[in-house]
């Protein structure tokens, strides 16, 4: 592999961007310093997925994580948080699974207003560009997710998390 360009100085953390691309779509992008197969593996292997999907700084614990990553397979994540008396479950189904390039899943915990998440992994030299689209069934569904203050795709149960995030955001101290 030709990865000699690695010698360029690189910021320690790549930038995560979010854009509301249309009335019912949010797009998150991030570049990772590694090949697509590795990034994909980290998204689809439960033991690896668990380690980053629930950052320690959130005060959340993952009670269980079941992922049957294949077309038609389901997933179910259950979290607990000190601020929430009940555990919070997030679940859905994988609609598309293309190794190293594409994942599509539904977010069914929110009922009818749930979004469909599409993630693409695009290898660019030694890096991988990850683009995540969260497509809501309607403008109203996305507007109400925003209005409720919950952080999209996670249902209203994550309201407390939003508060936490403000603290985390300050602590992360991006410059």
């Amino acid at each position: 592999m030709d990865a000699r360009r690695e010698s360029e100085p690189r910021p320690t953390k790549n930038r995560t961007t979010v854009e509301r691309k249309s009335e019912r779509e949010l797009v998150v992008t991030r570049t990772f310093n590694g090949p697509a197969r590795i990034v994909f593996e980290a998204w689809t292997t439960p033991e690896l997925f668990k380690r980053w999907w629930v950052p320690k700084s959130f005060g959340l614990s993952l009670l269980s994580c079941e992922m049957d990553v294949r077309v038609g397979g389901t997933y179910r994540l259950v979290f607990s948080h000190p601020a929430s008396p009940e555990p919070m479950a997030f679940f859905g189904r994988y609609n598309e699974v293309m190794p190293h390039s594409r994942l599509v899943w539904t977010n069914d915990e929110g009922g009818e207003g749930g979004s469909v998440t599409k993630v693409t992994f695009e290898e660019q030299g030694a890096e991988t560009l990850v683009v995540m689209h969260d497509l809501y069934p309607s403008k109203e569904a996305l507007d109400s997710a925003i209005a409720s203050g919950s952080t999209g795709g996670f249902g209203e149960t994550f309201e407390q998390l939003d508060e936490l995030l403000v603290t985390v955001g300050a602590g992360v101290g991006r410059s």
Partner: protein
Amino acid sequence: MVQYTRTHFDASFAALSDATRRGVLEQLARADASITALAEKFHMTLTGMKKHVGVLEQAGLVMTEKVGRVRTCKLGVCRLEEEAAWIERYRQLWAVRFDELDTVVEELKRKEKVDGRKKRK
């Protein structure tokens, strides 16, 4: 920084492209007013003013409230700001997650190097 949604910007620009609507905003910045009062002030029919206020309302620049038979207009809580704040929190969530994912990716890369070749699962 935060990238605003194009659709909302379009709505705002469309709303602000009209001289009467800009005038209405200036007026409302001074004091709340009824649609009737605004129509008089700008020498327009009630229907015409309702239309303008509707456009401003759509763009989130104006809020209206009906009390009895009078609809009062005031400057809107800017939806753009609210949405931008939400999007920034959403971005932070993913930024924190992805920074953790970096660690996992680095680890896997190191492991691959050590293993020499990748053993597929």
